[in-house]
């Protein structure tokens, strides 16, 4: 009995050893196979990113990780310059604006086909806009609602009518002039999708997208990779240069860099500032710097004591040493901020004098507010690295030490990222770290979106309400004259500076890394870009 058992066990052991040997040898063979094919990859670029796309229908997503992909598959009527937000022709080759700035007539490129073979024409444009305007679904088409003042029939709705004059001419009639109208149209979310595809796929269009872009969607392994391949019928001759792009999700910034160092990926975003030296020290890698169009800030909930007092907010503004924060936590890859919008955006008020770092002035201001003995407060810090704030926890810890100089005891609070956003939006935080990357390079997208009383409960996390600012911002929205708009925005920034609902901290320069073989890649300040001009050269 015992002998049989022993024999049996030995048999199993031997068998499993043999199998283990087998499996390891097969996996080796597989690896070799992979290595061989990657050598012969030709022009497929592998792009490492920090998170998977939410969806591939640009109209319904709002996150940068999705736009990084949809920008390859879809195109907009007008587009941004390569590294700025100047308006350039896209699917529309030219346009005319009426004198009252209420009618825009676009001449479209002809002979373009969607990836599913149907024609791109004026009808397709109209159908796309009707799909958004008539939906009245703010949860689905969030960007349309916030950029164009709601949906058809809403009081603030900007677009009155979109009409096809002929096959290659589209006319937009507006209810009121909207200064950033063209800049809004260039946002990747307002890309023109195949109406046929939308109809056929329904809710699955976001998993099987079809546009006019330089690359066609091929496959999506959720949480892992998205593959797009060259669109052979692309309407611009000689483009795209690559045979395809594979987007690979590697969540951790350091792990992604390691993959780049090992040559597993060609390009990556989200490089930690502290890792820059690793890239510059590697002869196979190069750094790409994204032009800054963001702001990282420390804000007060102006509805909560003691931050309802202007003096307290100003006092804290005097206590934060931005230069040292930049040196220590951004490795110098940022510039100090004094306004809620970056200097690259038109309308930036450079005359404003920032609150200097001055502990004595802070003490005086606190005395005025009757808080010379300090107080206790909660300081919320984001748990994840953001482009504008590589390490919110550490910046918060530096601010905590600064505040201690005047007897303010700050308790650092943190939640998981989604919960953090939700709670800050609901006004639960007393003071918090936050930031914003511009969508379209317009001052409106910073000042109105982030600090107007209309947006309390959405993006105005500080819950700052000032009627004078509100009037200035609304007037600027409906003014087409650039100089006049800039004057209005300049004035608004003065008031905001004095009232100090935020301490603007930095405008960061997000860093990307890539192999030296990557040519023609220009990171766009809005955070996502088309790879149509990129090539791989040895």
């Amino acid at each position: 009995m015992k002998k049989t058992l022993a024999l049996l066990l030995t048999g199993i052991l031997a068998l499993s050893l043999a199998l283990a040997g087998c499996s390891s040898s097969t996996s080796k063979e597989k690896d070799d196979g992979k290595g061989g094919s990657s050598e012969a990859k030709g022009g497929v670029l592998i792009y490492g990113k920090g998170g998977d796309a939410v969806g591939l229908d640009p109209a319904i997503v709002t996150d940068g990780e999705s736009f990084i992909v949809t920008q390859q598959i879809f195109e907009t009527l007008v587009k941004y310059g390569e590294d700025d937000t100047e308006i350039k022709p896209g699917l529309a080759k030219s346009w005319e604006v009426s004198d009252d700035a209420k009618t825009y007539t676009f001449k479209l490129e002809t002979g373009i086909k969607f990836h599913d073979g149907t024609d791109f024409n004026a009808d397709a444009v109209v159908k796309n806009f009707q799909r958004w305007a008539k939906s009245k679904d703010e949860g689905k088409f969030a960007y349309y609602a916030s950029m164009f003042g709601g949906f058809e029939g809403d009081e603030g709705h900007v677009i009155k009518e979109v009409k096809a004059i002929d096959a290659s001419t589209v006319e937009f009639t507006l209810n009121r002039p909207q200064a950033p109208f063209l800049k809004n149209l260039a946002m990747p979310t307002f890309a023109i999708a195949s109406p046929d595809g939308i109809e056929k796929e329904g809710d699955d269009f976001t998993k099987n997208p079809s546009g006019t872009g330089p690359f066609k969607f091929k496959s999506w392994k959720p949480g892992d990779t998205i593959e797009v391949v060259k669109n052979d019928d692309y309407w611009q001759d000689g483009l795209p240069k690559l045979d395809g792009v594979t987007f690979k999700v590697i969540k951790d910034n350091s792990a992604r860099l390691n993959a780049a160092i090992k040559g597993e990926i060609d390009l990556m975003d989200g490089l930690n500032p502290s890792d820059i030296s690793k890239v510059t020290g590697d002869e196979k890698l190069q750094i790409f710097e994204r032009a800054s169009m963001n702001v990282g800030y420390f804000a007060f909930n102006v509805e909560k004591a003691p931050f309802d007092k202007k003096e307290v907010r100003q006092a804290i503004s005097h206590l934060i040493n931005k230069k040292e924060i930049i040196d220590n936590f951004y490795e110098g890859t940022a510039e100090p901020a004094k306004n809620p919008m970056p200097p690259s955006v038109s309308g930036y008020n450079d005359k404003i004098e920032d609150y200097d770092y001055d502990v004595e002035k802070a003490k005086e201001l606190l005395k005025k507010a009757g808080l010379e003995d300090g107080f206790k407060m909660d300081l919320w810090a984001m748990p994840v690295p953001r482009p504008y704030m590589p390490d919110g926890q550490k910046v918060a810890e530096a601010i905590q030490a600064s505040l201690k100089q005047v007897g303010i005891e700050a308790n650092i609070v943190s939640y998981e990222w989604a919960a953090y956003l939700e709670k800050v939006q609901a006004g639960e935080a007393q003071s918090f770290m936050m930031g914003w990357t511009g969508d379209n390079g317009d001052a409106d997208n910073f000042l109105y979106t982030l600090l107007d009383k209309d947006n309390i409960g959405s993006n105005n996390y500080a819950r700052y309400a000032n009627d004078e600012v509100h009037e200035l911002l609304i007037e600027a929205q409906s003014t087409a004259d650039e100089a006049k708009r800039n004057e209005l925005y300049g004035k608004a920034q003065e008031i905001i500076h004095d009232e100090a609902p935020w301490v603007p901290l930095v405008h960061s320069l997000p860093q990307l890394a890539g192999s030296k073989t990557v040519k023609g890649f220009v990171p766009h300040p809005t955070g996502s870009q088309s790879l149509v001009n990129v090539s791989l050269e040895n």
Partner: protein
Amino acid sequence: MPEIATNTPPILPPKEAEEKVISPWKEGWKSFRKNKVAIVGLGIVSFFILIAIFAPVIAPYSFDGQKLSDKHLAPSAEHWFGTDEFGRDILSRVIYGSRISIGVGFLSVAGSVVVGSFLGIIAGYYGRWIDTIISRIFDIILAFPSILLAIAVVAVLGPSLRNALIAIAIVNVPIFGRLLRSRVLTVKEEEYVTAAKAIGMGDGRILLHHVLPNSLAPIIVQGTLAIATAIIECAALGFLGLGAQPPAPEWGKMLADSRAFIIQAPWTVLFPGLAIMLTVLGFNLMGDGLRDALDPRMKN
């Protein structure tokens, strides 16, 4: 106080008797002293306890004094262990950190000893359904990996040093509970307990005066080893951001904050790491020595 000493009536047993009956504690100390490794452990532990007590006197700087311009200075005469990302003196932070780690170690283990012993004694002495309930609860707690359970407890209570301490205490309760229960099960069959019962001694008195003292040795041994585990768990929770909150100089948190700089500024991770390693080693060596000395089963 010589007066009191002379006033005390000589109720001590006669000298001959004392020489014959050596108390088990004295005997334990004798054999512990012979164990060189254990003495090294005791030395390390005493060293860190002294550092913890006298931290404000020894530390050259404050633990939270930032000087951002002094970021990542290499070890020098001015900063023996270098500075961290905030320009804070790492030596001072490691010194103050010993207060947190050793404090959490002792307090959490004290908590689990008190609760665990109480439950264990009750379960062991009364048996039957009380025993079943308590023992099953212990089994349930032990079914979880300890660090995972601690994370769950902190997640419920909210991240703070106090809650980390409570979590670690909870995780260790069944260890002491089971230890005590098994001791009680043996001790309660001893003749002196039967004798005590026969002369009409109450349960409380029997437990407190006869059962508990006879279970003390294993508790001390297990307790010393548990402090080592508690320090590691405290550091682990700190590393995960669930323990001490900034700017507290908790060793695990120091490691977590600096791990990105392991290449550029290795001293920022080296010293807190060494501190964790040394204290844990000290408590483990001492615990092993105590076991050799006190556990009757280890004697030949």
